[in-house]
């Protein structure tokens, strides 16, 4: 087992003087084995992204625990969480989120350089080649199409060789044709590297490509039909 989530709760306060507390995650429990891929299905505002943030160590839960690689995330300091994100985790976002002032190649290189990898350029070019963008290496994000940007983001997410890959609607901003191509590439790479994947989506077809499906409904996670 690589990740175990137990009795996870998270609520947010909204509004001005009359603050309202909204329970986003009420009681989330699940675990995932190494090399397994799971999909979390849910409507907009169901708490999918919040769950992903907590697992990714970007946010903290109100109660409950997230154990990743035998480490309880709630007990880790900001520095330890940062190290964990750098070494063992990667996130692919819906909006790609590439650094606009760096080229496609440089966006991948910074992750490799953070890990003090040898042959940074060679490795980055190999990753770009894997996503079919070697020729677009020197282009800035503003010069790439949405699909190309997401492929660079996927290549970047693989750069630190993560043990767990988190993906938040990776094809959500793309048209259907491009989305399918990107997702095919994404799953090919995940399978090839035998990576553990948590995919958050509201698309049933996409979810079906994972080993297991969970439904997040009103803050509660329920095992799906696959």
């Amino acid at each position: 087992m690589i990740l175990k989530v137990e009795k996870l709760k998270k609520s947010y306060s909204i509004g001005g003087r009359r603050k309202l507390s909204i329970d986003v995650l009420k009681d989330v429990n699940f675990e995932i084995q190494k090399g397994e891929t799971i999909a979390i299905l849910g409507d907009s505002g169901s708490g999918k992204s919040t769950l992903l943030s907590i697992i990714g160590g970007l946010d903290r839960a109100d109660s409950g625990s997230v154990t990743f690689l035998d480490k309880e995330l709630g007990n880790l300091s900001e520095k330890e969480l940062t190290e964990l994100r750098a070494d063992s985790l990667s996130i692919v976002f819906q909006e790609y989120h590439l650094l606009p002032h760096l080229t496609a190649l440089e966006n991948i290189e910074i992750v490799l350089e953070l890990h003090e990898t040898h042959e940074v350029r060679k490795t980055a070019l190999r990753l770009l080649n894997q996503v079919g963008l070697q020729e677009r290496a020197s282009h800035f994000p503003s010069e790439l199409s949405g699909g190309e940007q997401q492929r660079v983001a996927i290549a970047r997410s693989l750069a630190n060789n993560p043990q767990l890959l988190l993906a938040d609607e990776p094809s959500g901003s793309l048209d259907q044709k491009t989305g399918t191509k990107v997702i095919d590439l994404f799953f090919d790479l995940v399978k090839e590297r035998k990576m553990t994947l948590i995919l958050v989506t509201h698309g049933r077809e996409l979810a079906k490509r994972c080993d297991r499906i969970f439904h997040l409904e009103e803050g509660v996670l329920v095992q799906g039909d696959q």
Partner: protein
Amino acid sequence: MLFKMALREIKKISRFHFFFLISLSLGMTGIIIVKNFKFSIEKTINQKSKKFLGADLALSLISPFKKEDLIKIKSLFKEEVQVSESIELLTMIKAGEKARLVQVKGVDSLYPFYGSMKLQKTGTYKAGKSIGEDGIIIQSELKEQLKLKKLDFLGIGKSRFKIKDLLIDDIGQNFMGGSFVPRVYLSLDSLKKTKLIQFGSTIRYFYLLKIKEDFSLPDINAFLKENFPEKNIRVVTPQRKGQRMGRGVNYLSDFLGLTALISLLLAVSANFYLYRNYLSNRSKDMAVLKAMGFGKLKIFTIYFYHLLILGLLAGVLSFLVAAPLVLFVNFIVQNFTPLQIIIQISWKSFFYGSFICMISNALCALPLIIPKLDSSITSLHSSKFRDRYSQKKGMILFIPWALFFVFISIDLSSSYRNGPLFCLFIFISLLITDRLGIWILNLLGKARLRGHIIFKLAFKNMTRFKTETLISLMVLVLLSSMLTLIPQLNHVMVEELSYFTKGRTPHFFLIDIQKDQVEELRKFCEENNVELAGPSPMVKAKLQSLNGKPFEQYSKKKKSRTREAEMNSFLRNRPINLSYKEKLYKDEIIVKGRAFGEKDEKGSLPGVSLEERYAKRLKIKIGDEIGMTVLGLPLKAKVESFRKVNWANLKPNFFFVFKPGVLENYPQTFLGTTFHDKDKRPYGFQMKLLDKFPNVSSINLKRNIEKTRTIFNDIVLSFRTMTFVCLFVGVFVIWTIFQNQIEQRIPDYNLLKTLGFSPDHLKKIGIAEVGLLISFAGLFGILVGYLLSYSLVAIFFRNMNEGWSFYPWAFLPAVLSKALIAFLVYRFVFKKVIEEKAPNELLKGY
């Protein structure tokens, strides 16, 4: 409707509005303070100019009018004119072991027609009062200088007088407070008793006129010239007197105004950056308005109103900030400087400040608004919006603002030359920074970097966010250059002042030596082991014409709008001193024209040698014919050479020097300087000199240099204060820019965090970026500051003797300010944004 839409923009109270208003109002504060300073001087001059002169008109001349002359002058006016006569001369007086040069002023009972003198014992002295027989009024500082314990008797010339009162506040005392020579008042009859009025003495006769009717100054000038051509009459109006008295303070406020302009420029640069970001967030609003059918003009009007309202608010804010500061400046001026002005806050400065803020805002935003208005709805909607204006077209849009800036500089410096030149220097510096910055950033951007990821990312941030980097760079360069410029200029001025104290300094300057006393004085000095330079003859004259054309006369109608016009008018109308000698001093060099002493050609006019800088100012060339009058007698000369004069030797030096054989028969006195051995007390010599030659006056040069230094120190203090204002505005402005930049980059920081960069990494990237930027801008700015100071000295202060000299420590304020900025950015921006915010807070950027 459009105005309402603009108001709605303002109502959205945002960080943008807050920083925009604070930055502009701080930048404007310095100008409002300087403007109030100027308004106060203007007001004082306008209100008191008649009191400064004591009359409606004054005539000054070196030989007295006869009774019939005065009747003739009075006949010029329809209504009865009252005339008050006074006589001024310089003389030495002594008390115990102390001797001082004083200005003795003999007045009649009508003096002064306007204003009054403030006396210590009897209050005020006004027209109608009489000083009385055997009595004198002395300036209070003279009592201190002569170490008088009580109001005793004092000897002047051949008589002794009882000191009746002490003069605390004199008529016509200049704004800088006091004069180099203290004044003694006595009646005209008493003055006659002193026997100091003798042929050849430096005496001026003053006739103050009280005129009930309106009069025409050109008519009076023409009348005097026609009826008294030999008299060399100087006509002084209350306005001219006021201007002359305020000249020193006006120059000070002119240069302070230019320094204050820098803080406005800093603020405008920051606001340009802030408004650029504000407008890029409003691109989609513009697209919506366009889609709704709003035309370019209507959309422009909304943003124009928005900027005008912001300008007005900034004007109000700056006035509110400046008002207590003006009161504080007044407190400092009243208590710690010799300036005789009450500085008050004027409503005019509010309108002035608001006008500048409003227009500057509107013009500065043109290069940002117009390209957006010219863009299509689709491109405005796009997150990748970039205007398609060429660089040349973009630069043209800056011209209206640049012209407006030049206009403000002319107004603040009261000069069509100094203001625009100052702006030119600033614009060239900024243009060089921009061009050089782009070139370096392009070069570095292409470079394949090696080294740590922190350094690489910092470097890429700098080279890829070009506009942000360039704006920060320009503001930092501007700040560094100004903070280097001011101490460097300060150093140049200190050096200029110490110029006269370098080498062997004479102790006394002797004036009013009579021709028949020259040999006796030489012998006297030899006997007392004192070295005497000179004595050199001095003949007073007045310039009349150049190559047959008369020099322009001062005219009331042609009021001098600028300092240059004022100075040229002053030089043309000033009496000149001529001299003659066989040989020039060793350090007096002919730089152009014939060698000194060569015989004049037969039948030609006598040759004269002119001081080179004086000739340049009056645009006189070699071979020109100069027409002069000496006591009404015409004298013509041909310019045969220009000389470089070493004014630092403090020997009798003159602008006009003739060869012997031309001036001997004109009325003349002699000047000399004395050098004393350091171990001997020069005051004993001064007392002996006074006993032997009572008509010869000796000016203590060393003491006067010290007095000049005190005034100069006050000027330096005001420059330093303005530097602090600049520094404060600069630090705030740069802090604002960095804060805004970092806020814009929060999404990038969030992303780096998710990629595994720790807050420590992010802080290091930020610090490395700011450090690189500050170091480059600091170095370049310091270089620009030195170059700027060199150019300013070469152009504005070209009459200085010492010229520009390098001051190695001038860079320190710039370096210290950069350290302060780096600390503030680190402590209050990076630390807050990166360290104190949890990752989920940072995620809000997405």
